[in-house]
């Protein structure tokens, strides 16, 4: 197969593509951009949590959080391997990340104020991510779909860890309960932006190439349907007066702040530059290790 129209028909009919197969340039370019951003997000996503390893409330929590950080860095390694096989070297991915040329997910550009944020991130940010990642199990690019199995399996521990942290706080003192409520209030906006603009699936090139198997709005609805009831049953509230489930099962909500999303992912988030600086510093600081190992 070496014809774009034929290839498109093949993937739309459920066909799977391997690394060595012929693929249109546009398909390859979209895969690289999307998968690279996923890898960047895994790598940058550990930074907000890393800040809490030394401040975790118990030894058990410290170990669990460290394990989560290890998992996420492991995901980044697997994902960058897939990008490398598509033709973009890992060193180039890292260089593009620290110079701000490549993007990473909006939720990793924000500060973590309290241990409540750590619980909300592990529970709800990971829940939002797992909705997207589960849909990627059906990606037309098979090497990516294959590693997603392991990634989804590990994310399920993170959601448990996050939910356990949240439950411990909401069953604690009023002040602890309040920590979760405040964190939810802070994270709800970014969480609603997470799955992106509600582009109709038929017009989303990522869906057309069957790189993604669901549209953005479908993912957001799945997230809301799965997790809003779990938040409400704990006596917590979400800062959106419009949020409700209609009789036909569709969730209504206030339009997410798309300007904020754009500003944040293009380098204007509250922690974007600090976190990129940290990544850059470590990349430079540890260059000698890579050189020594490869010598």
């Amino acid at each position, binding site marked *: 197969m070496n014809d774009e129209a034929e290839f498109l028909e093949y993937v739309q009919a459920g066909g799977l593509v391997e690394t*060595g197969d012929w693929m249109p340039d546009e398909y390859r370019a979209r895969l690289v951009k999307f998968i690279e951003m996923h890898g960047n997000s895994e790598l940058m996503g550990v930074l907000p949590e890393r800040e809490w390893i030394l401040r975790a409330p118990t030894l058990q929590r410290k170990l669990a959080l460290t394990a989560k950080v290890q998992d996420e860095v*492991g995901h980044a*390694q*697997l994902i960058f*391997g897939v990008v490398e096989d598509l033709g973009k070297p890992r060193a180039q991915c890292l260089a593009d990340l620290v110079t701000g040329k490549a993007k990473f997910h909006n939720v990793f550009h924000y500060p973590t104020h309290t241990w409540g944020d750590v619980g909300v991130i592990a529970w709800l940010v990971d829940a939002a991510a797992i909705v997207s990642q589960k849909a990627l199990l059906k990606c037309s690019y098979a090497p990516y779909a294959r590693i997603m199995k*392991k990634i989804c399996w590990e994310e399920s521990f993170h959601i448990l860890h996050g939910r356990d942290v949240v439950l411990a706080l909401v069953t604690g003192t009023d002040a602890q309960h309040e920590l979760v409520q405040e964190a939810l209030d802070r994270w709800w906006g970014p969480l609603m932006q997470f799955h992106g603009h509600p582009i109709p699936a038929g017009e989303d090139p990522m869906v057309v190439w069957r790189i993604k198997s669901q549209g953005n709005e479908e993912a957001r609805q799945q997230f809301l349907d799965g997790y809003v009831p779990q938040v409400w049953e704990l006596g917590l509230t979400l800062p959106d007066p419009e949020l409700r489930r209609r009789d036909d099962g569709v969730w209504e909500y206030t339009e997410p702040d798309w300007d904020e999303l754009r500003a944040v992912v293009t380098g204007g988030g509250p922690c974007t530059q600090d976190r990129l600086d940290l990544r850059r510093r470590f990349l430079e600081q540890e260059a000698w290790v890579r050189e020594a*190992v490869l010598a």
Partner: protein
Amino acid sequence: MIFEVFRQEKKGQPFAHAGSIEAPDGAFADAWAREQYGRRGESEALWLVPRVAVREVHDFPDEFDLKYRRVDGYSLKVRLKEARERAGTNPSRAR
């Protein structure tokens, strides 16, 4: 160097491809594969194979349509009917 990792989940099961890792040599590959594919006790054993050592075979032509090698090469229905008629056995009971 890129190593392909094959993972055996439980004793007696086949080793299935789990993914690949990049490592400067075999010793690093062992250590990283252990972390990536075994730290939750999800593996009984791992095989690490340098990617360059993997030989790939893709095409399996069957120009002569050698049906006798496949189950669809054996259509017993007609002959079985004939044999049962000749033996006088009841086709609704016999199978």
